[in-house]
């Protein structure tokens, strides 16, 4: 048996309706080791951590602690075994004080009453160990996100831990606080604690970890004791962006959308641009530069104070999404779960949500035609779903996003606005989405692309419109739009 390992997971499998989250994962952790766990969104990291922490139960597989098989029936049972998990999302009680939250799992009592003095002492000691300052008596809801994260960490460290699991613990912290956390984690390693460290920040993982395990699609695809960045990224991604045949330069067609002097008080000022058939126009800018505001205005979701629009040379007035739809403008919003899909509805019903008037007569939906339409599109975009009648809820992130795209392809748009089309989807789905968008543009649609992923924006866009503080700074064509130049332009105001 694996007596030398502190924690050993063997053949862990876990499936949710419609999704296999973990597929035979082996993972082990030694005492006095920091073990980095990395993977793209949806690779299965969170599920694995939930199983270690007793929040979820594996469908198959064994968990051994110190060589003994253990059954982790609940988070409480896991804690009793000395396994502490710092979750990505906070599990704090907003109305209780910092000190009470830190001691919540084992409130010191005297004669059945909470011993306030002991609570403050224990919490104070836990915070002191972290090397930070927190107001012990303040209710947690008054704290900043960073301070709440520190409370969460202090809480996990307030009791003896043999295994400490940290899921993105640095996401909300400043450099100074991260340094303090890292030295603390290293101190725990010296004391023989086994630490699982999960982070999207590759530098942190490389700096801290003795060993790194890479998950992809619910399986371990690599484990290395001498982690190198290139190798890890290659394992995580499984495919290089460069391999994609992104955009064969084609001669753009006639003007499909002309925007002149678009203004909306407090959001953007005097924005003008032109978009041709077969062209992708990228909107570059930092958060608050006005990219999404412009997109929502073009789609009739947000008010317009001044300015004019022409679609294929004809002046149009867009005051509602219905107007936009009639004018042939589609909008893939930035959050597919809250804005893109009705999750409780089926794939079929979501797909035709914007097309129903076209496939109905006198308000009566032609269901046979709907099925045929959706079936063809699901096939074409390779949307993986158990059936057309499965709820959108059960699809993976990438397939949900393709479903939102399908909804907009169905209206046969003249102009399609794509707001963060690949956010939070795995690499394979990303490539498919790029292909879909490229094909769409080749077919003569004009696309407007918003993406915080700069390499993606530059790879896809024929021209890039640079925005800052709601104003157009400049337009760069493909040759001019280098990463350095765009970064410089979008942040100039902030740097000055």
């Amino acid at each position, binding site marked *: 048996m694996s007596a030398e390992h502190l924690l050993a997971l063997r053949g862990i499998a876990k*499936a*949710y*309706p*419609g*999704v*296999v989250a973990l*597929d035979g994962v082996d993972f082990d952790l030694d005492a006095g080791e920091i073990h980095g766990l990395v993977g793209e969104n949806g690779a299965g990291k969170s599920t694995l951590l939930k199983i270690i922490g007793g929040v*979820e139960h594996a469908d198959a597989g064994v968990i051994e602690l110190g060589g003994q098989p253990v059954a982790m029936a609940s988070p409480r049972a896991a804690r009793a075994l000395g396994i502490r998990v710092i979750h990505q999302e906070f599990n704090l009680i907003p109305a209780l004080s910092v000190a009470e939250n830190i001691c919540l799992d084992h409130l010191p009592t005297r004669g059945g009453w909470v011993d306030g003095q002991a609570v403050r002492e224990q919490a104070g000691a836990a915070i002191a160990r972290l090397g930070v300052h927190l107001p012990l008596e303040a209710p947690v809801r008054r704290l900043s996100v960073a301070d709440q994260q520190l409370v969460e960490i202090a809480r996990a460290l307030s009791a003896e831990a043999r295994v400490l699991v940290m899921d993105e613990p640095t996401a909300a912290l400043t450099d100074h606080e991260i340094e303090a956390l890292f030295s603390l984690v290293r101190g725990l390693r010296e004391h023989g604690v086994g630490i699982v460290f999960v982070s999207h920040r590759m530098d942190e993982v490389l700096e801290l970890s003795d060993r790194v395990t890479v998950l992809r*699609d*619910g399986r371990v695809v690599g484990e290395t004791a001498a982690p190198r960045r290139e190798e890890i990224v290659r394992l995580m991604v499984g495919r290089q962006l460069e391999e994609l045949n992104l955009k064969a330069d084609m001669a753009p067609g006639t003007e499909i959308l002309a925007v002149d002097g678009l203004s909306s008080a407090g959001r953007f000022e005097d924005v003008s641009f032109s978009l041709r058939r077969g062209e992708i126009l990228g909107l570059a800018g930092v958060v608050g530069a006005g990219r999404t505001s412009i997109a929502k205005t073009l*789609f009739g*979701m947000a008010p317009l104070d001044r300015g004019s629009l022409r679609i294929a040379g004809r002046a149009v007035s867009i005051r*509602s*999404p*219905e107007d*936009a*739809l009639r004018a042939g403008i589609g*909008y893939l*919003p930035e959050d597919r779960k*809250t*804005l*893109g*899909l*009705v*999750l*409780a*509805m089926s794939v079929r*019903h979501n797909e035709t*949500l*914007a097309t*129903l*008037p076209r496939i*109905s007569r006198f*308000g*009566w*939906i032609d*269901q046979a035609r709907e099925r045929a339409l959706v079936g063809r599109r699901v096939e074409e975009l390779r949307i*993986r779903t*158990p*059936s057309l*009648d*499965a709820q959108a*809820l*059960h699809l*993976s992130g*990438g397939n949900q996003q393709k479903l939102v795209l399908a*909804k907009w392809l169905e209206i046969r748009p003249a102009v399609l606005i794509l707001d963060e089309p690949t956010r939070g989807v*795995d690499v*394979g789905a990303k490539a498919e989405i790029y292909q879909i968008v490229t094909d769409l543009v080749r077919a003569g649609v004009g696309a407007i692309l918003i993406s915080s992923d700069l390499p993606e924006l530059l790879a896809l866009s024929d021209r890039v419109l640079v925005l800052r503080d709601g104003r157009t700074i400049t337009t760069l064509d493909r040759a001019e739009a280098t990463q350095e130049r765009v970064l410089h332009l979008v942040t100039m105001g902030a740097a000055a």
Partner: protein
Amino acid sequence: MTEHTDGRARVLAALRPHRISIADYGLLMAFVAMCVGLALLTPTFLTSQNILNVGRQVSVIAILAAGQTFVILAAGIDLSVGSLVGLTGVVAAGVALQAGVGAGLLAGLGVGALAGLVDGLAIMLIRIPDFVVTLAMLSAARGLDLIYSGGEPISVNSPTFVFLGGGYIGPIPVPIVIMLAVFAVSYVVLRYTVFGRYVYAVGGNRRAAAYSAINVRRVRIAVYVISGLLAGIAGVVLTGRLATADPQAGVGYELDSIAAVVLGGTSLFGGEGSVARTLLGALILGVLSNGMNLLDVSPFYQQVVEGVVIVLAVAISHLDELRSRVGAE
């Protein structure tokens, strides 16, 4: 997802009972079990007279519940329908006395639809929560009812009017025919029309519906108009059955109609459920009440039993939902 996991996901999804759940069939089985039990326990339950009697008693609440289903599916709630039954009844009877039965019926239904329109407009334009607006309408409509009638019952002498509440088509009481027609139309509208699809979309995710270029405001107003119109039909049927418009008619019916919808398993958060199940919910409540009467259960205890049944039924459907939802995230 790789080919491998894709295959697994497909198998798993196929194994998972699709759209079949305790909530779907449990309710039907509970209804059948209740009927069988009562048939064995009482000699009168399974007589055609008693069954038609139950149907007639259920019809008014069931018609209201059909309208309530539209509203709740769109993630709203209509607390005003009880008072609208009273108001539409006295208006229909009053106008019928002066201008004939046709005008009376039109006036009754028109007032119901108008009240629903006012509800919907107040909710959408002044942005007051559904709960508050319809609670206010519950009070105001009862007041208008009392003002119009002077607090006195208005008797109905038109045979046509009485036929709607007390007549028969063949062996079937007219209220049952009207109820079945209302449910058939509601079912078809919700299942086969663009509007029905929009009701589910707006209730399931209002923002996503708006981002799909659906006129959310129009849909949300329309469901209140439908609910008001059906309250008018219920008011007319009840008035015809009693041959009198009672200003106090329909007190508390809004809660009975909501109970039928909830018992049917339609989500109070909107977007999930069906009008067919609402009919089942209304029938269960009706048979329960009829059965307890036949078994000589005191009316005081009957109300307690009804409360317990509602909670139990919803608890069962929740268990089922929890089981299928856990881990979906």
